[in-house]
């Protein structure tokens, strides 16, 4: 149960396909950080038929707005932000070729359908574990949208970054399956 699967990022479609909801992964390699405002700009670029500042096809986006790096650290606290806020932008990014997302929290039915349709995967990191996750980020660099500050487009080199498969490429959703087993009917709790 507590076995972790070690994977390199970016990973191919076959790897995304074998990951199963509930599995724990330790991710190493390169991921890109982007949240609300960067997503807005991605959407604007795609709507105008322009290239994104970085080719994100086959890549993993981490929804994060880190705290500034204190001296001697690659980055400050860097835990995941709520994925649902990006729901309106995600289907078009998955159609464009994004392989996976790391965030926290449930996603809309449209996003889940797009994950299935494009053979992608949604990983969840522990929300609020910003100090712990910061240790897994070895390099951090703003690669575009510098004017957005923490909301810029980041490139991270990560090592053994812990996450759990929350929505796999078949659409199995841990945010539904997990609580269902523990949910008592309101009638029982009254």
């Amino acid at each position, binding site marked *: *149960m*507590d076995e972790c699967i070690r994977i390199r990022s970016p990973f191919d479609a076959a790897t995304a396909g074998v990951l199963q909801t*509930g599995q724990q992964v330790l991710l190493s390699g390169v991921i890109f950080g982007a949240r609300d*405002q960067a997503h807005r700009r991605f959407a604007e670029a795609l709507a105008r038929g322009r290239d994104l500042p970085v080719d994100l096809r086959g890549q993993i986006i981490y929804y*994060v*707005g*880190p*705290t*500034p*790096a*204190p001296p001697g*650290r690659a980055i*400050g*606290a*860097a*835990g995941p*932000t*709520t994925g*649902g806020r990006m729901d309106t932008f995600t289907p078009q990014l998955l159609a464009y070729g994004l392989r996976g997302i790391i965030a*926290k*929290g*449930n996603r809309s039915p449209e996003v889940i359908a797009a994950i299935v349709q494009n053979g992608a995967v949604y990983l*969840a990191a*522990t*929300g*609020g*574990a*910003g*100090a*712990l996750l*910061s*240790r897994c980020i070895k390099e951090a660099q703003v690669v575009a949208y510098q004017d*957005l*500050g*923490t*909301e810029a487009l980041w490139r991270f080199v990560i090592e053994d970054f*812990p996450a*759990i498969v*929350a929505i796999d490429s078949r659409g199995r959703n*841990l*945010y539904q*399956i*997990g*609580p*269902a*087993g*523990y*949910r*008592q009917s*309101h009638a*029982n*709790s*009254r």
Partner: protein
Amino acid sequence: MRELGVDLIAARVAVLCREASFDLPPDVLSALDKAGQQEDSPTGRRILNELCANAGIAASERVPLCQDTGMVLAFVEVGQDLHITGGSLGEAINRGVARGYRDGYLRASVVVDPLRRVNTGDNTPAVVYYDIVPGDGFRITIMPKGFGSENCTALGMLKPAEGLAGVRQFVLAAVDRAGANPCPPVAVGVGLGGTADKALLLAKKALLRPLDEPNPDPELAALENDLKVAINGLGYGPEGFGGRVTALAVHVETYPTHIAGLPVAVNISCHALRHKTWTWDGQ
């Protein structure tokens, strides 16, 4: 008349901002620890362990517990016989926030305008509430509030006839709707009564009470416990992956209200329930 200079207040606010971001209050840490013993989902237990480890790393390495270092709420109690000198109190608080966020490498998360969304760069302004109290003392509590949980706030203007059952249903529905988004296990603040705005403020202030301290009114303490049991029955568990511990605590605060109304407000905090208080010692 005693005098207190604003420069000292600004300096203390800067320290409070940093300490609140790095040091999880002991009652919260012990609630997380206790939750780890109550949780029977293995994933949930692993997450609760991670959160305790995270608090340890944040405290020892002086790195924020969470990257969302929040928008700052300041609750100020000013004695009516105290003279604040040297400038504007409100400006001093914001100066302290700016300094604390810059020196502590905390995230600037505030935008100038809700629609134009340009970052102010120093996490100011704070949202400040003043209470004028008897005496000549001064106390300030800094509460950095993350928006993963703040976005889950709910306000209901119930009919008085809906009573306790209506309140219970409203609170449960709000926490159910929030689901995994506010980073459970959460603390749930419930404000009952007053006006709409007063109920929301009560809900926020309810989060400042130590987690192991029930409401002194036994009826309200029973309601708090009943709500906690019901919320934990929703099954979200740590991070919403399923489990027994969705709420660390539910706190209810009340205020007199109008004969025609039953305002109920729900304000949720993530497990990183951060706040720090400075009471002036007169020096």
